[in-house]
């Protein structure tokens, strides 16, 4: 009954959507248009249409590096959904079950998000550094790396290369996943706090144990929040850029390390294929919409007011 009169709706919606349309949708449509044009540089005007006009989309299908990027990105998406949201859920449930120190954990888990990805990238470069990085120093101290002291007193060590072709995915994914666990943790813990206490009290009176409470009250009540987390994790993983870029640069090692985000950036800003870069951006958006719709279908309750 309150919401029958629709006029106030204009005040609610117009400012935000005016922003979205001018700064997201208009530029994005412009971007789609750019995929059909031939643009040689960032500031330069288009040199007319591509020949044929769908040239970029043809290239999209036959580009082997893009295929690598897609493979890595899909793998990263799966890993983020499983590990980021999974670890965050476990941590949130654990923190919710304790009284002493809950505040401290809440504050501390958020630290990696506070630090900019540029700074984190530099930090992880130091941590995974080939010669004398933090992890290699640890391995050396633990005696896990082969080393010998030469007659001249010089220490020769077989350092472990964390960024070689066999291990680069681990080195690339670990910081990305680790950084945003705290983010989903905060969202989930806020959701947990919004569940009314009387539900748990009623369950306790009925004799429900800890695990059963989680299974039959917490998880169903968290469903919408979890769904929000899933959508954010999927779209976030598709856009990942700064950390891998600072750590791996352009497709290291040996063109195996591309993600859709870094590949698109490289095409647009280093190779100056602005129109092809725009095409990859379109692909990222389409993938994101499709995947998060699937997640929404599978999870969201159709609870409406």
């Amino acid at each position, binding site marked *: 009954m*309150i*919401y029958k009169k*629709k006029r106030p709706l204009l*005040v*609610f*919606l117009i400012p*935000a*959507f005016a*922003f*979205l349309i*001018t*700064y*997201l*949708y208009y*530029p*994005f449509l412009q*971007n789609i248009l*750019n995929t059909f044009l031939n643009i040689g540089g960032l500031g330069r005007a288009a040199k007319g249409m591509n020949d044929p006009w769908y040239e970029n989309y043809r290239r999209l299908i036959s580009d082997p590096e893009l295929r690598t990027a897609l493979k890595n990105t899909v793998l990263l998406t799966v890993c983020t959904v499983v590990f980021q949201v999974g*670890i965050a859920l476990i*941590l949130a449930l*654990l*923190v919710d*079950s304790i*009284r002493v120190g809950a505040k401290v*954990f809440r504050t501390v*888990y*958020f630290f*990696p998000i*506070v*630090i*900019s990805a*540029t*700074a984190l990238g*530099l*930090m992880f470069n*130091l941590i995974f550094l080939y*010669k004398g990085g933090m992890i290699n*120093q640890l391995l050396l101290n633990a005696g896990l790396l082969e080393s010998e002291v030469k007659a001249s007193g010089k220490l020769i060590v077989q350092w472990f290369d964390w960024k070689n072709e066999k291990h680069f995915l681990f080195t690339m994914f670990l910081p990305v996943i*680790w950084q945003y666990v*705290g983010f989903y943790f905060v969202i989930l813990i*806020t959701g947990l*706090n*919004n569940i009314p*206490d009387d539900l748990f009290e009623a369950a306790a009176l009925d004799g429900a144990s800890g695990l059963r409470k989680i299974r039959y009250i917490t998880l169903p009540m968290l469903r919408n929040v979890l769904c*929000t987390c899933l959508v*954010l994790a999927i*779209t976030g993983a*598709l856009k990942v*850029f700064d950390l891998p870029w600072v750590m791996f640069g352009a497709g290291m090692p040996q063109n195996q390390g591309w993600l859709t985000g870094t590949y*698109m950036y490289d095409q647009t800003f280093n190779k100056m294929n*602005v129109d092809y*870069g725009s095409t990859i*951006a*379109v692909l*990222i*958006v389409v993938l*994101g*919409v499709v995947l*998060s719709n699937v997640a929404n279908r599978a999870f969201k309750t159709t609870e409406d*007011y």
Partner: protein
Amino acid sequence: MIEKKLTPGKVLTYVVLCLWALTTVYPFVWVVLNSFRQKGLILSDSFSLPLGEAFTLDNYRTAMERSNFGNAYLNSILISGTVTVVVIVLAGLAAYGLCRYRFRLRGLLQSMVLAGMMFPVFSTIIPVFRMQVVMGIAGTGNRWLSLLATILPQIAGNLCFAIIILTGFIQSVPIELEESAYLDGCNVFQIFFRIIVPAAKSSFATVAIFAFLWSYNDLFTQSFFLRYPQERAITGLLNEISSQAGVNYGLMASAVVLVVVPVLIVYVCLQKHIIKGLTAGAVKG
């Protein structure tokens, strides 16, 4: 009701929680320690405390001498502060409208918000840059206009996320509260500011933190619109220092610390409000 006993389950809980806390705190401690270490020593021994011979303030001295940190802090706070305020107001209003009203375009608008989340910044930045040049706010060399040119796209970039989060929480506010306020003679705007905002206070604080941090840490937009030294914001400064520092890891560490400290202060301040909002929210019975 409170169990004082220390059960094995409790111990395990704390062990797991502490282990994860270690991974989130230690790297930061490691960077702080190494920012005080003589630059040559980081690669050979980065774990010990930098005491005696190894201790130095040179890294900070070099960082402060080479770059204008005060100015960059001011620019960052102006940009991120404005972005945060505008985002929570606009997103709060929009989320409320989308949650509570039934109207024909609702489904379309909701998918617009969802789809807006997928746009990578680099897919919109080139047209935005051209558009803002035409509007006369980008690339003018005027410091205030350049700040504005950074603020506007950042607001748009944060809105979708904020709307999604706030919609989730406003939905869980019991509608009975609003109905009784309406019967007491409140109009929808009064309901929004007196019922919805206090009830969803925790999620507003959460959204504010994220908007501030993303704006502060967003190197990409900054590097497009803040091109002159007096316009540079703090993350841009860090990038510049790191590209000049080469293998001077000590300088890098000290610059990282200088960039991270103000954000930690803001975070710890707002953190209190989050916890207060959680425990005193009108939602809980």
